[in-house]
């Protein structure tokens, strides 16, 4: 029982990171139907920004988190404006291939500057490295931090999407961009804003992962990026609550597979889930079956 609770805590920490990345995937898909494969690499950039902020600039964890979010936000908007916006009226496959190109560009540009070697994250201040016991379960302060920061960011995101003007515009554009444009909504700005939000969350996830796994490298974005994508598909791509559920689910599955001593197979299980979903319910857990227009 204690073991189970322990794994639940671990699953929640990992899941909240996946959920943060999946949110960016799903929001971008929702608004321009693009699977932004460069998203995982924005998260990698976030991890490096956090790293250099903590080492070179000697800033604290929260300041570094904030800096990483801001820089990734800018990076996301630049990627959208430079790489995707000129292709707004192109075929979806053209944009998708561009996304893969942007992904490779980010990975190898980073490698050029910082080298391919794995770096370890700087040690955290004492108040973040300790742990405490709750009913026989060991909870790291770090895990509390990761889950807490993630939940806070998700709450802010919900607030923005549900309650603000730009959030309403995002929902309108995701349903019918042309109609939204004709109702006075600046669609290009709304799309940029969506990239900004998603990329900021990815940046935060990058720093949190650096803290959690303690090691970063320029290709670290590939696998978590793909898994977050699976999470988004699992929940129903384009749906924000779906990304949350999917993120926690995938994090949980991975943790329990590892806990069962099968950590070699954890990736296989996650991608097996993707295949199963695509066969059984391609629209995801919360997705509605849409009839194709004839």
């Amino acid at each position, binding site marked *: 029982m204690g073991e189970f609770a322990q794994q639940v805590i671990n699953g929640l920490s990992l899941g909240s990171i996946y959920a943060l990345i999946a949110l960016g995937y799903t929001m971008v898909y929702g608004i321009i139907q693009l699977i932004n494969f460069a998203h995982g690499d924005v998260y990698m950039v976030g991890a490096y920004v956090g790293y250099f902020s903590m080492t070179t600039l000697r800033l604290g964890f929260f300041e570094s988190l904030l800096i990483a979010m801001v820089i990734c936000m800018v990076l996301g908007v630049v990627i959208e404006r430079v790489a995707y916006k000129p292709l707004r009226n192109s075929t979806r496959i053209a944009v998708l291939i561009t996304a893969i190109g942007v992904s490779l560009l980010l990975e190898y540009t980073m490698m050029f500057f910082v080298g391919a070697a794995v770096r370890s994250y700087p040690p955290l201040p004492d108040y973040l490295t300790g742990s405490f016991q709750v009913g026989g379960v060991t909870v790291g302060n770090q895990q509390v931090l990761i889950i807490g920061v993630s939940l806070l960011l998700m709450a*802010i995101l919900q*607030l*923005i999407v549900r*309650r*603000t*003007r*730009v959030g*309403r*515009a995002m*929902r*309108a554009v995701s*349903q*019918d961009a*042309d*109609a*939204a*444009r*004709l*109702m*006075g*909504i*600046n*669609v290009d700005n709304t799309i940029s804003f969506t990239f900004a939000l998603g990329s900021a969350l990815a940046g935060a996830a990058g720093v949190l992962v650096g803290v959690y796994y303690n090691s970063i490298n320029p290709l670290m974005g590939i696998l978590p990026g793909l898994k977050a994508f699976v999470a988004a598909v699992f929940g129903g791509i384009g749906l924000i609550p779906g990304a949350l559920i999917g993120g926690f689910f995938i994090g949980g599955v991975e943790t329990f597979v590892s806990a069962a001593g099968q950590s070699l197979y954890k990736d296989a299980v996650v991608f097996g889930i993707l295949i199963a979903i695509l066969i059984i319910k391609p629209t995801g857990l919360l997705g509605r079956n849409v009839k194709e227009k004839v």
Partner: protein
Amino acid sequence: MAHPAPQASGPAASEQADRAGETLLSVDKVTRNFGGLSAVSNVSLQIRRGELVGLIGPNGAGKTTVFNLLTGVYPPSHGAIEFTRDDRTRDIGGMAPHRICAAGIGRTFQNIRLFKDLSVLDNVKIAMQANVPYGLFAAMFHTPKFHKAEVEIVDRSMELLGIMNLADKAGAQARNLSYGDQRHLEIARALATEPTLLLLDEPAAGMNPAETSQLTDLITSLRERFKLSILLIEHDMSLVMRICERLYVLDHGVVIASGSPDEVRRHPKVIEAYLGEEADV
């Protein structure tokens, strides 16, 4: 509008302005080609402030293309579209749709295009937002300014829904409304953008005679209440003949006739192209 004698700033505006009111919209020899095909060619039309004008013609005549040109969905290949607001005349041909909308042209769609997964109220609020000033900061921290703006948006949205008889359905998802209600919501949403010129694309499509008759009264009362000029595309001749002051008839992308409903009804080209054997109705 209680403006003193409007000072026309464009040449077209000064030529067209007459005693019935200043020219609000002036479309001058507009052509739109798609590939080698002209969807509309050399179309000219004027709408004066407060007028209710009909745009009719057989299927495929290019009526919706004209609407799309007026609202910036695509730019004209040739010609100018001049729109006057607050005594300022601008060429809006090829301007971005959201800017044209902000300039004062609102529209509905032939095939209903609501934000179906949003509530009825949210559909109207979204359209109204372009006119309400508050920033992201205000919205996230619920400053008094945000509250005031938000309350005002909700109040005005509910007022519009009330006028369109949708107030009791404000919380429903747009997709769950009946067909007639969805058409009404489209009009409410277009009104929320605060247009001076409202473009209605087949507002009575799919309605029965009783509903059409109600809609006719509604359009007339909206025009009074919001001081609107209206351009409408419609197939239902009873509606067009009853409320439009002037008509333009399009056929194969060309204006073949224009004038009062009676003049148009008798025009030989119109009878040939459009009304056909139903001309004697």
